[in-house]
């Protein structure tokens, strides 16, 4: 059932449990992510998708269970750990970009190329940013425009470029196509496929099954805090997935 078992998973969760008071948000959740694949995490509201990615990205702490990066156990206690110890980059719905600064500065924020460690080398910064944006085929007027002037889809692209510039390997995208137009959705799809082509791992949360079936290789379905199914795209169809989400299929 799981795709391509010959490769080593880049990220695994084992028996993740998480409760909020009396509500058990996650029960014994195991997921495996591999390089060069796009995995969609799907489920109804309250199924535990957000809780799971927040645990992986260090915003929440798990009650029990393990997270393994390339087979080694890692402790992720804060967002910084997710980034430093497991190369995880989470692109949040609100995108966390600095609106008053331009695209180039946003991409290289806090890792700007400098002259003698002192002055920012803006020429190199913009040249590198342009290369990156071009490579990702993100449609932007220029890397010198302020983020405040960009559309939702463009911002998404900038956020992903920023993560990529930091050498991250695992990209968690939370509802990347929410609030995007049709054309912008298509741009995000090609961006996701581009990441996969570059041997990155993408974990996608989406309500939009249409979108999931367009880009995902594998689907992991959560229901009431438990993993109720895992399917490769080729081995399933929308009816089955809807059944798993709603509990009609057990």
């Amino acid at each position: 059932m799981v795709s391509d078992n010959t490769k080593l998973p880049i990220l695994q969760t084992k028996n993740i449990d998480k409760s909020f008071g009396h509500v058990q948000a996650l029960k014994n959740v195991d997921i495996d992510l591999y390089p060069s694949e796009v995995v969609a995490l799907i489920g109804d509201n309250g199924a535990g998708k957000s809780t799971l990615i927040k645990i992986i990205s260090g915003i929440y702490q798990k009650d029990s269970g393990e997270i393994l990066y390339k087979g080694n156990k890692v402790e992720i206690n804060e967002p910084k750990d997710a980034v430093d110890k497991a190369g995880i980059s989470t692109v949040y719905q609100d995108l966390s970009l600095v609106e008053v600064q331009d695209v180039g500065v946003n991409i290289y924020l806090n890792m700007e190329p400098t002259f003698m460690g002192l002055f920012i080398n803006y020429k190199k910064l913009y040249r590198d940013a342009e290369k990156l944006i071009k490579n990702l085929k993100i449609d932007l007027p220029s890397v010198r425009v302020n983020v405040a002037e960009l559309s939702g889809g463009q911002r998404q692209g900038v956020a992903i470029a920023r993560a990529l510039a930091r050498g991250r390997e695992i990209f968690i995208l939370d509802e990347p196509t929410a609030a995007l137009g049709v054309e912008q959705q298509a741009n995000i799809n090609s961006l996701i496929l581009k990441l996969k082509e570059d041997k990155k791992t993408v974990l996608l949360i989406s309500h939009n099954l249409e979108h999931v079936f367009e880009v995902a290789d594998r689907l992991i379905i959560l229901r009431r805090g438990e993993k109720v199914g895992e399917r490769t795209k080729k081995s399933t169809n929308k009816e089955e997935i809807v059944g798993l989400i709603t509990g009609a299929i057990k």
Partner: protein
Amino acid sequence: MRKLFNYLYQKQEIAILIPFLLLILFFYSRNYAMLDPLTISSILRTIAFPALISMGMVQLMIAGEIDLSTAAVMSFCAVLSAKLIKDFNFEVPEAVIIVLLCSLLIGCVNAFLTVKIGIFSVIATIGTGFIVRGLSYSFTNGVPIYPMPESFAFLGSLRPLNISFTFFLMLAVAFFVQILLTSTKWGTAIYATGSNRQAAEVSGINTFRVKLICFMATSFLSGCAGLLTMSQLPGTPGDPIIGLNLELDILAGVIVGGVSLYGGRGSAIGSLIGVAFIQIVRSGLVIGHFNPYLQLPALGLLLMLAVAWDVIRHKKNLA
């Protein structure tokens, strides 16, 4: 035309030059003494102190915080140095070092209250301001401490171009801060912290450290201003009323100069022009034969106008 308007709308530090020059012309038309070299050098000498402090304040406000204890710190540092030298027989350099360390400490306290405990910086710094201003009154029982040793007045006695040492020091600091803001990683970190703290953190910027350093820089420059004020006054008294109400000049100046109360925008040049603007209003009212008591109402009005402009611009940018 529309483009020009939009440009001025976004680049407040340039737009402000227009009313600035008009205002000077207006006061000049009331009294030609406005542009007398003596008037100008006197204005420049006065500007030096608030402008020096505003160079810390501009960084702090871009980082999204504010400091209303500046003038109190200035007076506290002046009085403390006088007290240490006169009553505890410290040498001048020792006293200066102790006082400046105290100013850094006050900056740390402000940062902890604001960032770690979570008190709004407006309130936290009004609190520390009351405390240190109160301490300087209690150190002196309200009576200025004087006279101070001659060596203390050394820097203040320098008068390059008939202006003052402090003015040229301030220009150097302003130049330095402008470079910091526009061309260094520190600058982009400050703007990011003030504009979107989460984004800054995601990019690995330690925003507490950024704010801490900004608070410390502001207090440190306030302390320097206090010491320099003393070295410049005749007879150099350690007087607790040094810098009374000056925090408002600084705040109004920085905001008039285009720094946003919401953080994330502003420049050192703009703040410098803004502080000069405030002083032109103050001096102009006197020179232009207006009732000098109108200074504070005029200042309050200006502050409100500048903040209103900032709020409207912020709302428009969000829309």
